């Protein structure tokens, strides 16, 4: 699993890569009440917004860690956004066929960043 400095994670799963937001990001947002995802087939660009999360205190854009094509979206988090607060690392947002990675950092680098 790799991270971005803007609090997203990306994890390779076979041919695709799952993308989500970090536990720290979910904690800072507070209870998430709404998630907006792209559609399957959409292009995502590293560093650009591809999804939105809304909590009781803020609406934030989620930036894509990679460039590629969305192959799957997690409908479960649309119906139950609380899954992101419960376990941010299993509540993936989209699975992407990656063409190019963006600026990614290691877990240790990320942990140092949020210290």
């Amino acid at each position: 699993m790799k991270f971005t400095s803007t609090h997203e994670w990306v994890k390779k799963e076979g041919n695709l890569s799952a993308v989500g937001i970090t536990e720290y990001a979910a904690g800072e947002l507070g209870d998430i009440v709404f998630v907006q995802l792209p559609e399957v087939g959409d292009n995502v660009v590293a560093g650009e917004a591809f999804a939105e999360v809304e909590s009781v205190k803020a609406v934030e854009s989620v930036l894509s860690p990679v460039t590629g094509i969305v192959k799957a979206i997690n409908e479960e988090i649309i119906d139950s956004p609380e899954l992101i607060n419960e376990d941010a690392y299993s509540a993936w947002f989209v699975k992407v066929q990656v063409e190019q990675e963006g600026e990614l950092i290691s877990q240790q680098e990320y942990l140092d960043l949020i210290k």
Partner: protein
Amino acid sequence: MLTIYQRSKIGAKSFEAPFITVPKYALDDKYLGKEETILPSVSEIDIVRHYTKLSQNAFGVDNGFYPLGSCTMKYNPKLNEITASLDGFTSVHPLQEEKSVQGCLCLMYELSQQLKAITGMNFSLQPAAGAHGELAGLMIMKAYHESRNDFKRTKIIIPNSAHGTNPASAALAGMEIINIPSLDDGSVDIIALKNACGDDTAGFMLTNPNTLGLFEEKIMEINKIVHKCGGLMYYDGANLNAIMGIARPLDMGFDIMHINLHKTFSTPHGGGGPGSGPVGCADFLQQFLPSPIVIKENDNYIFHKPSKSIGKVKNFYGNFLVMVKAYTYILTLGAEGIVGAAQKAVLNANYLKEKLREIYYTKGSCMHEFVLSMQKVKEDTKVTALDIAKAMIDKNIHPPTMYFPAIVQEALMFEPTETESKTTLDNAAKVIIDIVKKAYVSADELHSAPKKAYITRPDETLAARNPKLRIDLAKG
């Protein structure tokens, strides 16, 4: 508390229709409703008690201190209500001939002139609220570029410290939003702005003072950058109270703006009445203003459609009685009073900020509002900005704006306005300091605040995830 429907009792009534002396007329079946209309049957005294109770459960600026940042919840002088209820203003019809409503048209004309004196811009009073004014302003921007056959300007640049209505209005106007970061003090990141500007830039939206209550000192440099690339400057009038009568948006290089009459010019808002968001622009854009505007020809006031008008943005002429209130306020204060109000708004904000030094210290002075971060309190005690805001309710103070601007963690944003006394500010400072101190000794108590309010701590997460938007009136 029961709803008015739950108070309903069969047979109870407040009004007895007089005995009918004309024959009954049988209405055609097609005009008759198929279902019985459910209306509450309540006696007059029960209606009065119901709505009196409802008003007591609410909190407005007439109840107590209301430092809701960015909203300018200043006191609404009762004189405004008196003028707005004068017969000549209330018993006119929007379809009356112009010559029979010259007084009303004169007021609209003079209000536009007053707003021009304060901002430098030409106004249409049509928009019904601030965000509506923003939308109208962005439509003017779009129409201007298109009138020059410049169709590639589709992007609007907005700092991440902006009011949420800015990107929402831009999206509604069909523009693409380019978000740029802000510096720590909420001011514009000049380098990011330069990088974002190009031949596809329609314009840049900004509020000054910014959302951290600080004056954008590089405003002249900013407007040069935006204008150089062919974009227009949009002024979000939400923070006009800090500078009214002192600095004009036109002179800062802005081309288009809106004013929230319900903030700066003391007309009620927040459920107290309709808003009004006049949209204004520099001379070279005035032919694009929403129609109609009032102009003066010889000694007559007439409605006029600017030659390239973006059209009507509201039925008839906007929220007219709100204009009457704003006009009353401006005349009451006069040119000197307007300046005095802005100065006192800034003084009050700085006074409260200084009083709060004990829990939060920042260098320098602010304009009409300031932002405190409760991040340290949260780290130390787990008490959040939300808990602190909620605890203020028990002390008869309306919470400040929370979690805005988003660039400050655990933000509380205070705007005391000019109408509050030193006593009120001293009391508020003591309340806030006491709450923060309490966080370190009995945090649990704050997590469940408020205790004395009619509604204590609603479950906001549940409300957002499973909103219950309808109620069966028959069942109550």
